[in-house]
């Protein structure tokens, strides 16, 4: 049960990408000889867990610690920090070192910044007068492959930082990551961007190509044909809705963290009092690969069918005489038993959440808000949630959904709900409200909402969704087709031009550019099925579209993209790049100010 996903079936050579990052880290450790204490900032540690096994680190004389303000507990003389270049992390390093100095401990300090050293971080170390004690280095980790078709830039605060703080550092990071991909897989000839951040990333990417060109002399067909960049800001409706795919629901209720969920052992049928176990969730698990993208109710049916079939086989096995080859087949089937058990346990556990009336009520309400027909009912529902002091983040999810679909709330309601929120959850959330307002997620209504037009034009609400045999991406939310993926559908099929009027109703500008040696060609104007043959890579594989979500993507959206890839007549394989895998909860949480 490896947490590190198997990438052999990836449409791009992600394995070499990962091996490169592994090697870089090992080299850093090798070059610092002898025993050392490696101090990793916890979030980075999480990201690294899908790249490298801890045992491998220990082989290189590493004692592993998490970064915190507490004094370093180690006998090692050499202390190696591996930290993201985040300003707030510097204060921990400072406090560690000051503590050592005050105790007269003399150590050798190494600080490796991920993905690169920054002036701002080093300035903090300088101002604290410890910079001269440190050997500074870089660990250029820009991309973490999470699965065969998903890359993460591991920027969990990207959305909040750029929307609230105006800190655009993540945009440079994203462009750099894509540019790094281009060095391996060729200059991506078509770029379509929607949203302020996306258009900016496309700009920076061009800037980088001019500064540090990918060698386009070798006339190899680029492996990625099109890059679609989407701001999360363009579609904040989708992540605020509860995901109804298997993997999506696992994330909503059990919080998938770096490709695994942590559960009480008892849930998985292991009888160990109070013990937690980690269950890895990626395509290496064949059964999971089969069911992760399906609507949860279908998953339940499939699991039941499989269990029944297994039972039947078993009965036959015990009652009739079997040939050797039949026995063999049976044993082969038995091999899938651990996977079956695992997912039956998980599904059972999930259903205890999904059957709760509060969850069902919440689903109902999400749908009502998305439908945007019954303002008062929605308003009263949210008001009641606040009065009942339901978990703040649940309230915020619906409130954000409500505000966006109405393009803000009428001043009276806006002020009223904010006051009720502060009264119910405490005045520290003045900062939370301020953050949400800055990000445009909860605001005063200033113009008429476009939502109904957008919803209708893009057919976001689909009646008669057959979740078992879906004919539309709307199955992932049982009737709501994620706006983001609708845009991707259009972008892949015909580019932005036919839906320009709709795009104008959504936040931020859009752009469409040709790059590299395709910059002036017109034959690549559209990506229609007819021209698909040209785009095919020589060996018959379909060429690729990389869809990058700036500000995060949900599992349900990834499922919808996989659904599109699986369609006949689809000319491309879609792969996903994201700042982080998110859901409404994690996204809303980044805006919550933790004071007090």
């Amino acid at each position, binding site marked *: 049960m490896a947490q590190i996903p198997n990438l052999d079936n990836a449409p791009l050579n992600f394995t070499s990408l990962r091996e490169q990052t592994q090697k870089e880290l090992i080299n850093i450790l090798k070059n610092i000889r002898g025993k050392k204490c490696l101090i990793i900032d916890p979030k980075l540690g999480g990201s690294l867990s899908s790249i490298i096994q801890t045992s491998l680190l220990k082989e290189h004389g590493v004692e592993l610690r998490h970064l915190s303000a507490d004094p370093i507990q180690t006998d090692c003389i050499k202390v190696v920090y591996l930290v993201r270049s985040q*300003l*707030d992390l*510097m*204060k921990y390093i400072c406090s560690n070192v000051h503590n050592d100095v005050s105790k007269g401990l003399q150590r050798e300090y190494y600080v490796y910044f991920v993905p690169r050293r*920054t*002036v*701002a971080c080093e*300035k*903090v170390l300088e*101002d604290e007068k410890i910079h001269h004690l440190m050997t500074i280095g870089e660990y250029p980790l820009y991309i973490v492959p999470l699965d065969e078709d998903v890359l993460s830039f591991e920027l969990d605060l990207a959305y909040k*930082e750029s929307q609230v*703080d*105006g800190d*655009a*550092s993540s*945009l*440079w990071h994203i*462009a750099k990551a894509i540019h790094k991909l281009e060095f391996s897989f060729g200059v991506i000839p078509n770029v379509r961007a929607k949203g302020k951040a996306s258009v*900016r990333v496309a700009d*920076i990417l061009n*800037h980088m190509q001019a*500064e*540090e*060109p990918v060698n386009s002399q070798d006339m190899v067909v680029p492996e990625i044909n099109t890059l679609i960049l989407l701001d999360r800001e363009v579609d904040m409706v989708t992540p605020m809705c509860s995901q*109804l795919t298997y993997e999506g629901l696992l994330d909503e209720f059990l919080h998938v963290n770096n490709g695994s969920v942590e559960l009480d052992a008892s849930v998985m049928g292991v009888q160990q009092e109070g013990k937690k176990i980690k269950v890895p969730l990626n395509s290496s698990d064949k059964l999971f690969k089969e069911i992760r993208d399906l609507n*949860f*109710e279908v998953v*339940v049916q499939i699991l*039941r069918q499989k269990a029944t079939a297994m039972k039947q086989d078993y009965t036959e096995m015990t009652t009739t005489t079997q040939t050797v080859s039949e026995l063999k087949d049976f044993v082969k089937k038995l091999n899938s038993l651990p996977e079956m058990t695992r997912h039956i346990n998980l599904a*059972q556990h999930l259903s*205890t959440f*999904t*059957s709760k009336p509060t969850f*069902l009520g919440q689903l*109902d309400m999400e*749908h009502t808000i998305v439908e945007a027909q019954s303002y008062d009912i929605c308003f009263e529902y949210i*008001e*009641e949630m*606040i*009065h*009942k*002091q339901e978990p703040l983040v649940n309230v915020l999810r619906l409130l954000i959904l409500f505000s966006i679909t109405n393009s803000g709330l009428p001043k009276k309601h806006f002020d009223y709900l*904010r*006051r*009720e929120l*502060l*009264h*119910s*959850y*405490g*005045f520290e959330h*003045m900062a939370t409200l*301020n953050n949400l307002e800055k990000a445009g997620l909860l605001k005063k209504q200033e113009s008429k909402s476009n939502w109904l037009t957008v919803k209708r034009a893009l057919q976001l609400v689909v009646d008669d*969704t057959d*979740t078992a045999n879906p004919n539309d991406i709307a199955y992932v939310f*049982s*009737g*709501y087709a994620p706006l983001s993926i609708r845009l991707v559908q259009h972008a892949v099929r015909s580019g932005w031009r036919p839906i320009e009027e709709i795009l104008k109703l959504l936040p931020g500008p859009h752009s469409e550019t040709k790059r590299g040696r395709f910059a002036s060609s017109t034959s690549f104007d559209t990506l229609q099925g007819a021209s698909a043959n040209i785009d095919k890579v020589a060996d018959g594989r379909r060429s690729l579209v990389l869809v990058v979500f700036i500000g995060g993507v949900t599992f349900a959206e990834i499922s919808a993209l996989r659904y599109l890839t699986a369609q006949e007549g689809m000319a491309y394989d879609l792969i996903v790049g994201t700042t982080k895998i998110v859901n409404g909860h994690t996204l809303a949480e980044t805006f919550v100010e933790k*004071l*007090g």
Partner: protein
Amino acid sequence: MANVSVAAEWQLLGDRYYRKPELYRPMRWKHIDLSRNKVACAPFGGPIALIRDDSKIVQLYAESALRKLRIFNSAGDPIADTVWKNPGGRLIGLSWTEDQTLVCIVQDGTVYRYTIHAEPLKPNFSILGQEYLDENVVECVFWGNGVVCLTDTCKVFSIADFKSNDPTPVRLADPAPVGIEELPHCVAVIEPQYTMSGNVEVLLAIGEEVVMVEEDEVQPLPLPPGDGPLQKMVVSGNGRFVASFTHDGRMAVYSTRFEKIFEYHCEADENLRLIRSSLPEAVEACVDAAGHEFDVLRQRTLLRAASYGQAFCSNFQRDRIQEMCKTLRVLNAVRSPEIGIPFSIQQYKLLTPSVLIGRLINAHKHLLALRVSEYLGMNQEVVIMHWACSKITASLAIPDAALLEILLDKLKLCKGISYAGVAAHADKNGRRKLAAMLVEHEPRSSKQVPLLLSIGEEDTALMKATESGDTDLVYLVLFHISQKRQPLEFFGTIQARPLARDLFVTYARYYRHEFLKDFFLSTGQLQEVAFLLWKESWELGKNPMASKGSPLHGPRIKLIEKAQNLFSETKEHNFESKAAEEHAKLLRIQHELEVTTKQAIFVDSSISDTIRTCIVLGNHRAATRVKTEFKVSEKRWYWLKIFALATIRDWDALEKFSKEKRPPIGYRPFVEACIEADDKGEALKYIPKIADPRERAESYARIGMAKEAADAASQAKDGELLGRLKLTFAQNAAASSIFDTLRDRLSFQGAS
């Protein structure tokens, strides 16, 4: 030359044939008598340095009494000269290092260095340590990048590497323990690369003996009796042999450990070497020979022969001849007297073409360097870069705009060239304006921005950094400007640039809190100052010194009130202002509550929580007071009180409360609170009172009363609901039923 028998030039020496071709005749210099001069020839066809030998008495003809250091190329073409005015006594030795720096050592041990353009390289330093400044250098022996000096008191000093940043002299062991009368007859060195220790070893012929001197020891060497005293020693190029003149005029060759190898009396052996071999070898040999040949006509003859023979060899590598032609074109070009670098083909291959290019540009032969690098398909950046820099240095009289034109014209030949590098050079030469113009053309922001800062173009730097999208560069500029400018000016600069401003604010939030406050104040963003103050009030609350209920609440409240005042300055922040006012009020009340109840559980909880806590503690008066103080709506009040009473299971009070008046939120909350407290019996009290039959049906269903639920549902005439409820009950026992329930509930089409 072509007319002389080719074979006649070759002489046998040991088991090899050698020849000594004359490279340049005549030498292009005039009136040079080598015997009057001290001479240093650089290896590998490098330059020749000459200076009149002041240890000899020579007649001065029509020349100045001042001596001149003159530098020529290998063909005798003058490169540069300079008047020798250096103090320190007589010039003892001069030599070229591997990177073609001329090193001159004078009597008092001072080392003067020159470029091939006879420009002095600073700083000068002494080869003698501080303690030995009285000594006089009498002899120096150079190798590669190092030197060994002998002083008049027979001390030996060495510098291992002139190229290192800090060429410190090392004193070697004293060759003779007792003060010796006579100085050594001759000195030779074995280069570090050939010694066991990796340090230089010095051979000294003293009296009738030879000793080897190292850093910490002196070893006598076994010189055969009768050979000493030696008059002259030379170490072979591979460091394995020493050739010496004995006192009686013989030449003897020893190993470097002084076992005698042979004595040699030169005999000319002019036999022709007969080559009888098969054709491919012959062709091969022709090509090789052409490579080694200096005479262009003979190169041609040999290559023509090879080309002719090649036609009859099936397996011969055809590009060999082509390659050789290419190499020879380059060699012939640099051997021409104007350039004067008579490289042999081995030297060329040993040094590599890029070193050749380096030497060409160092000799300011940029055009040839450019042609050669183009011809060999090498990157031309080095050449153009060096040209541009030399051009700038040499063009003090050309105005900036004109010089820029000239430079750009050539710089554009090379994609990816560092404009920033050229600009930096311009700046170093005091041409800041030209630098600014050049750096404008640099496409790499990471190179451009730091340079713009160093030439004082901060505003442009900030603009470029922002455009690049690289926030690290923006920070670089920010810190630079904030150090250089007064705060107010700095604030003005960043206020106009949103990205810079936001990054500054982000940084300052963590590490320059007070400075940030100044910024917001000076730019009139009072609400931001208010937020900062208000956050400070939380910090104060977190302070462990501020135990709950302590007088520190006073300062906290003061901060919040200050924030409130600032919020109230702008109309748009009316809401925040009111909230801050309420916050301060809440803290006061909570403080009082903690005093009266003697329980530190109120401060920093919300208004709703405070009300709940009061009710749970049975302090209904306080609860009501909080409700009135903050104008809590009836709706919220009901929710809070219902759930608080259910938490403490005060069912009587709850029932009484339900009867106080018609609850503004109906009876469903009572049911919910009871169910949550896990008391279905209590819940049942309120279900019949629920007005909406559908809600009633759901409530019955939740406490498992199927029949009542069905009745209510049918009363609601809601078939869908009925069906759903039925399903719930039908399969309630089976764990899998939950999934089926889900089916209907999850699908939106069924939702009413």
